[in-house]
């Protein structure tokens, strides 16, 4: 019995650059095409299918088309979805896009309450735990179905007691726990993991630059869990460009050198450029003269203005500046664009 586990698809994500909306749709299509080759008995999606509840028709159509193609290859496969925090409209009673995909053949959806779906003549029980059901209770306790041979839990949530609780899962009857909400693939314990997102869709995509994106398959008999990477948009974070001892021209030259040193170039990538020590006026000039051209070449450009070395910003120094700009600073590193082969991660 093989289960494919996806989460945090964020279909409808627009990002801050041209083509980013297409990235997430393509990543999803690629993932489902690979899943069709792997031939699972069940596909689960642990929430955040959509980036927000007011998506246009295009992401819904992409989901529908990809699932139909999957079922053309695997007619018996069921896609079970538990709603995530992004899938549900804030207005009570409003129907989000999950209601639409829930009507597709072979797709089972839980939007507001805990739902159990019996499959394979009752041998397999999938318990879907949507975000509103988790939030409605301070200590929601879920148990497997004792009548089923296999029990799979799908939740857009964290585990209340973390690792200390998790080792007992298999004995408690859960054969696999598919979690969503974290964008990084994270095995929590035996047979319990976050599979992460398929693209770099966080508020700061560069924070996810070193994280492989993909989905997971779990073999319920053996407990073997395998991570399958999916190609995602490459993200590059340059080391801070220093303005010390020079002005815009110096920064432009140093930036040119840094960009020339990016392996594989910058075209089509997510690029982050921290600049240290330039005034607002100099940065404006740099933007007009240099960065406008760079912006046209990349999928998304983010510039961070860092204070100069030794600059003081009040009695607290420069500390407060760092929160938004220092995270994820790396020296010219490119995020992984695709990997070859799966990664077996445990039993």
């Amino acid at each position, binding site marked *: 019995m093989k289960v494919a586990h996806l989460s945090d698809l964020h279909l409808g994500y627009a990002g801050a650059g041209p083509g980013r909306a297409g990235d997430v749709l393509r990543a999803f299509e690629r993932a489902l095409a690979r899943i069709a080759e792997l031939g699972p008995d069940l596909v689960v999606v642990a929430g955040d299918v959509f980036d927000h509840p007011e998506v246009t028709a295009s992401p819904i159509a992409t989901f529908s088309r990809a699932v139909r193609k999957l079922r053309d290859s695997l007619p018996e496969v069921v896609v079970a979805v538990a709603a995530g925090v992004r899938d549900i409209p804030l207005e009570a009673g409003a129907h989000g896009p999950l209601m639409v995909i829930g009507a597709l053949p072979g797709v089972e959806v839980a939007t507001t309450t805990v739902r159990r779906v019996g499959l394979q003549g009752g041998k397999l029980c999938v318990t879907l735990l949507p975000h509103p059901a*988790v939030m409605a209770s301070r200590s929601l306790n879920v148990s497997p179905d004792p009548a089923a041979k296999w029990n799979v839990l799908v939740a857009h949530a964290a*585990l209340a007691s973390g690792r200390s609780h998790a080792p007992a899962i298999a004995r408690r009857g859960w054969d696999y726990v598919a979690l969503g*909400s974290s964008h990084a693939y994270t095995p929590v314990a035996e047979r319990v993991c976050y599979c992460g997102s398929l693209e770099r869709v966080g508020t700061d995509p560069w924070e996810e630059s070193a994280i492989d994106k993909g989905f997971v398959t779990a073999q319920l008999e053996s407990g073997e869990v395998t991570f399958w990477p999916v190609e995602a948009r490459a993200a590059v974070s340059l080391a801070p460009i220093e303005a*010390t001892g020079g002005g815009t021209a110096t920064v432009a030259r140093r930036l040119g050198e840094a960009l020339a040193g990016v392996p594989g170039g910058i075209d089509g990538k997510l690029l982050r450029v921290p600049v240290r020590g330039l005034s607002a006026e100099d940065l*404006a000039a740099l933007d007009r003269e240099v960065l406008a051209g760079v912006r046209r070449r990349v999928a998304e450009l983010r510039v961070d*203005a860092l204070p100069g070395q030794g600059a003081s910003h009040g009695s607290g120094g420069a500390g407060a500046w760092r929160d938004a700009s220092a995270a994820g600073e790396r020296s010219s590193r490119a995020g992984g664009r695709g990997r070859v082969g799966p990664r077996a991660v445990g039993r």
Partner: protein
Amino acid sequence: MRISSLQAGSRGPVLDLRDSRGLVGFVGESDPLWDEFLLGLRTAFGSRGGHRGPGPVVEGAEGPVVVGTAAFEAELEAVLAAHGLRREEYGALWFGDGPARTWLAAAGALLLGPAGADEMRGGGGGGGDGSAGGLADVWVARLARDARGEVERLMRLQEEVGGLEARLSEAREEAAIARGDAEAGTMAWVRERQDAETRLLLYRDRERELRGQLTSTDEAGEDGPCGRCGRELGDRAGPVGEALREEWESVVQDGRWWRRRRDQLEGKPDDLQGSENRAMALGAEAESLAEELARRKVQGLELEAAARRLDGLLELSARLRGGGGGGGEDRKGAGAGGEERRARLLSETRRRVRARIHGKVVALTGGRLLGAFPELFAVWAGGEGRGGEDVAVLEVAARIALVELAADAGAKLDSVIFPEGLDRLHREDRARVVAALARLARSIPVVLVCAAPRVAAAVPECFDFLYRVRGVAEGGGIRRQRSGIGAVWLGG
């Protein structure tokens, strides 16, 4: 002060915030109730102790206190005195009240501290007549101390320049020697390899030639001609054949040796590889030392600038200390010096506040407004240009900078309110702004924002609580719900 409830009018609905922490969203688009809550807060805050009856409540030192009452005023007074803030500036800090110039004045006061703020406003502080520079001394001394620290740091770095230059020269010399050794080794290796190759080819040719002669001698026998001279061999066929065979074997033996030698020399010898590695390592070390030296030379320029700044501050400090003496001329001089001092202080403070807001705007927009910032800021600071997505993000950035300055200054802020602006944000900025507010909520117990449903839905996981006005069909009232990512227990 931690806000624990907002009230619409004196009898209207209450937004109970007592059990809410973190980033709290009031979800509504141009909601009249939110406007009433804010009006209630502004009215009570502005009543200066004259407020009567119900109203917004904060958690005071002794328990709940209604904003605008005498008890509230007593608590507020202590906060204002501790941080050199004026009442309207605290309103700007707490709930974004007042025009841009009040926000900037608040930022300046927080940056300078009570003494500097007083000086900036021309109040003369505790110095009475202000002749001796009064409390501004503290601020100037602080700036001078920072500048001196910077100069000392840069001087220490400059002291190492001589040593670095000597090390660089040594490293370059060693690298040149190692490079020379490696080049000589390479030439010797190439020469030997070519020699072995040539010898091998010669031996191959000779072996082929001898093999031919031997074969023809063996095949022809005594009646045949000698493979070398062409004469008939006769009874010399045996010895000649034997001599040829011995020579052939010897050539084959030597040829084998040269082939092994050639094979040996195919790859670069270990010692040569070692020489090359050493040359490369020394070259890299020299390069790195050269880069470090270049950096130190640039720091030399910084040192000059820092030293000039320190001189200026020391001069100002001396003038402050010596300006209080005696006669009318001195007094006039001190007065002029005071004006100059204030102007410099004001200019420096404005520069730093603007730089801080600039950094925030760049972070919240990902650099989208880099080109527009100077003009945008000038217009906004001048009291114009309200409205629009660019001003909206600038205002949020300014508020965040203001709150961070307050934290840096040690002001204990238990709640801040962002009453508007989030709805006007550019689509790309929404998620970044809400994420920044969520980070702010890690250090401030309650960050209350009003956000349209599309803004709250853009990053619902960043919010801890959401409040929504229920329609009549839902029974009316305000519905509170937990947001963020929940947790689940696994049972069995």
